């Protein structure tokens, strides 16, 4: 392991470019919200939000320079969030599918 803890310092230009991309995505998501895309409104809004999250996490939070262990922990956290969302929605959304005897 290298003793140099400051081996990855991104240029200010990189940060400004990421920031400009984030602003463009914010304008895009706000503008597209007024267009009637039916059920895809949610999909488009969440895809744009995920892109913004990735930009912030990878560049501003330095995930792309972080150790494998930190990355694993981040992915693990998202996995647990996925379990929370998926299993609960899997229950709630399917409750009407099967009739309950005696009701």
């Amino acid at each position, binding site marked *: 392991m290298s003793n140099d803890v400051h081996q990855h310092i991104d240029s200010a230009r990189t940060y400004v470019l990421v*920031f400009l991309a984030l602003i463009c995505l914010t304008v895009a*998501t706000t503008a597209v919200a007024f267009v009637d895309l039916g059920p895809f409104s949610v999909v488009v809004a969440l895809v744009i939000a995920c892109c913004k999250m990735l930009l912030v996490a990878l560049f*501003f939070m330095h995930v792309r320079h972080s150790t494998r262990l930190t990355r694993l922990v981040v992915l693990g*956290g998202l996995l647990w*969030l996925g379990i929370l969302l998926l299993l609960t*929605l899997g229950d709630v959304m399917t409750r009407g599918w099967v009739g309950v005897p005696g009701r």
Partner: protein
Amino acid sequence: MASEMQLPAHEESLALREQFDTAAQQKDASTLGMWIFLITEIMFFGGLFLAYTVYRSMYPGVFAVASTSINVYWGAANTVVLLTSSLTMVLAVRAAQLGQKRLIVLFLILTLILGGVFLGVKAKEWYDKYEEHHIPGPAFHLEGLNPDNVVSQGHAQLFFSLYFAMTGLHAFHMVIGAGLLLYLIFEARKGRYTAEYNTPVDLIGLYWHFVDIIWIFLFPLLYLIDRHLGK
């Protein structure tokens, strides 16, 4: 047994405490610890996002009317303010990594100001909701519901309960973040953070960006996704 007591293998400093072998190891441990804390925060907010998703799927019509009653332009402007504060925060971290002591203070102060602007706009939005009787309680009334009855009004109150819980918890994190920034500014002015040791700036930066990411999801979910129905 006293003879077995070992002296530290290296000089102790802020960047390299006795229990670590190298400064890099200490920095990695601090970063990992902060991420584990942030993941508990993800689960914490995740429950609220989940509750919102479930109730929105149960009462989509009422939630659409309630959601479109929020002013989207204030929300979008506030998103830009918060993203800008993330830029100034990351530039403060960069200044710390380069040991530019004056720039650290400058960028931290800019971040604090932008955080204050965000909270100010948030307070204005909440006050609008108060004036419009959109705060859950006996005085609550939302126009435009079909059918406009007690049950629909109840479901609309559910939306605004979640709205205030989610934006309120987010704002509470911002207030804590502002306190942490004040501490950093105070310490940075004393010249405490250098190219060798800047872990607090780095970790509080992670926290600030995390709070930004929460807003990145709150903004579309609360303000945007039903906007086309209100036109």
